[in-house]
């Protein structure tokens, strides 16, 4: 290898590295996620010191700490992480699908359907397993309803989908109000907490976590197509994107993610709208970066918010949706105010 070849070789190697450099923020966000999870597990009614924490992780430590970490706090922290990630990814996908930066996972009425399902189960006095199933069924019902109605007899446009979703969502809203009005007083707090989003009902984090991981793997190769789609369906088609199948894929994926998130923790507001926006303001608008970043940042945000919700007025707990909104609103406004 002569000198010129060596230089060219090195240039190629550094090119390969610099091509991956934009993805460096994912490493930081992953660290943030791990930190948030560790905090969530360590803090609470009984605070676990770092030394004791490591002892438990290494398989030692007291019985009380082991139960606290592995059976109570870790499942809830992981469920919170998964829910936050699902909501943020679903929000980012909806914003691309509707080409509307104001879209969030609930804009098409998925959470309304889920809420009606969940509240009905609560009114009937069923257990949490039936409640989850009922919420998931409500979410899917709403998804198909909106999709079928928006399809109608004419063409299928984002504007029409959005309008159908908003109208269906307000229909669900009316049913929810009706249920709250006629519901027995002793069940009202539980119902209201569920509507605000509450991780107390989270049973197992695994379905949500596994789905989140699978969906991230699925959408990363779609990322560049989504970048092109963000510039309008005609431009996307002109650059070789099969627009209609891609839009259907996004719609089904985003609805499924939202349904799963709502089933896990009720309708937690704001994560799905704000996390994708914050990341776009900071990281730009490459979906290959934004979608996995949403999964990590949304997860970290909700995990931290839930930790706060558990300790702010301990021993009572706040619904986590209150915290996400209280944290999210000012952060978002500051970022927006500072952006060009």
């Amino acid at each position, binding site marked *: 290898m002569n000198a010129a070849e060596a230089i060219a070789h090195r240039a190629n190697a550094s090119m390969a590295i610099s091509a991956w450099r934009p993805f460096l923020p994912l490493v930081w966000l992953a660290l943030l996620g791990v930190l948030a999870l560790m905090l969530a597990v360590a803090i609470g009614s009984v605070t676990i010191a770092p030394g004791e924490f490591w002892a438990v992780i290494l398989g030692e430590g007291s019985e009380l700490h082991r139960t606290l970490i592995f059976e109570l706090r870790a499942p809830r922290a992981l469920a919170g992480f998964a829910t936050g990630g699902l909501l943020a990814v679903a929000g980012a996908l909806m914003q691309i699908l509707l080409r509307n930066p104001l879209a969030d996972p609930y804009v098409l009425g998925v959470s309304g359907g889920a809420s009606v399902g969940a509240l009905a189960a609560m009114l009937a006095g069923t257990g949490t397993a039936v409640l989850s199933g009922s919420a998931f069924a409500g979410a899917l019902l709403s998804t198909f309803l909106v999709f079928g109605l928006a399809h109608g007899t004419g063409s299928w446009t984002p504007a029409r989908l959005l309008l159908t979703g908003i109208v269906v969502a307000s229909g669900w809203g009316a049913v929810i109000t009706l249920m709250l009005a006629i519901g027995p007083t002793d069940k009202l707090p539980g119902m209201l907490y569920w509507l605000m989003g509450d991780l107390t009902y989270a049973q197992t984090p695994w379905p949500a976590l596994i789905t989140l991981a699978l969906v991230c793997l699925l959408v990363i190769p779609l990322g560049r197509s989504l970048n092109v789609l963000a510039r309008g369906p005609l431009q996307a*088609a*002109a*650059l070789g994107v099969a627009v209609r199948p891609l839009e259907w894929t996004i719609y089904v994926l985003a609805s499924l993610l939202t349904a799963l998130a709502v089933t896990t923790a009720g309708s937690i507001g704001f994560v799905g709208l704000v996390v994708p926006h914050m990341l776009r303001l900071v990281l730009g608008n490459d979906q290959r970066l934004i979608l996995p970043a949403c999964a990590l940042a949304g997860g970290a945000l909700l995990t931290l918010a839930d930790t706060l919700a558990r300790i702010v007025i301990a021993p009572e707990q706040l619904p986590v949706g209150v915290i996400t909104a209280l944290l999210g609103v000012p952060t978002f406004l500051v970022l927006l105010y500072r952006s060009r």
Partner: protein
Amino acid sequence: MTVLETQDLVIDIPERPDGRALNLRMEPGQTWGILGPNGAGKSTLLHTLAGLKPPRSGDIQLDGTSLSRLRRGTVAQQLGIVFQERQDGFPATVLETALIGRHPFLSPWQLEGGNDLEMAENALEQLELSDLAERSVSTLSGGERQRVALATTLTQSPSVWLADEPTNHLDLRHQVAVMNLLSGQARAGRTVVLCLHDLNLAARWCDHLLLLYPDGEACWGEADSMLKPQALEQLYGQPLTWAEVDGAPVFVPS
């Protein structure tokens, strides 16, 4: 290099009679101009030629293969289109916007490499946009955005160029630069098809013309045979005065 052909093509404009079916053969090295008044169907024809809008009847072929039988991705590797209207819903820089022209050539897991970046930067340079590379497209003027759109298609580097009023919003100097760039593409063996409003740009840079009338009638042929004042006056419903400047006819409304 690619031949774009139509067979008995009737574009689909609602509530308009079929008119004359188009049998065009647009060959590498040719620059076609599509002329016609507002609403004659110039943009619809261009979208139909790109396979983005189904025709009412007839067929469009790229090198003898029907467009409808080709995958969208395959079409996009050969045919590029510059739209008249654009949608910038989400923020993106000028360089990022040009780079999406490489989309048809990359596999889903592939990142844009040094070669793609080089093509995009080269395209920006040709359209005098290098200094704006890191600017957000939403902060640009209409003429600058028009050049960004052209740069995106130049990065795509298709063998068939379709452009809908490529000189829209451009000042005089950039109009000339863009027309030179497009006819340069034709000289390099590509097929170039332009919708134009300016007769004089068409007269100076196009070697073939297609006149589209609002009732669906059409005629086409070599530019010399089409640039007849009577035909053009009838096309636009506007009396014209014309003169010869530097060997090319110049038309002005009388």
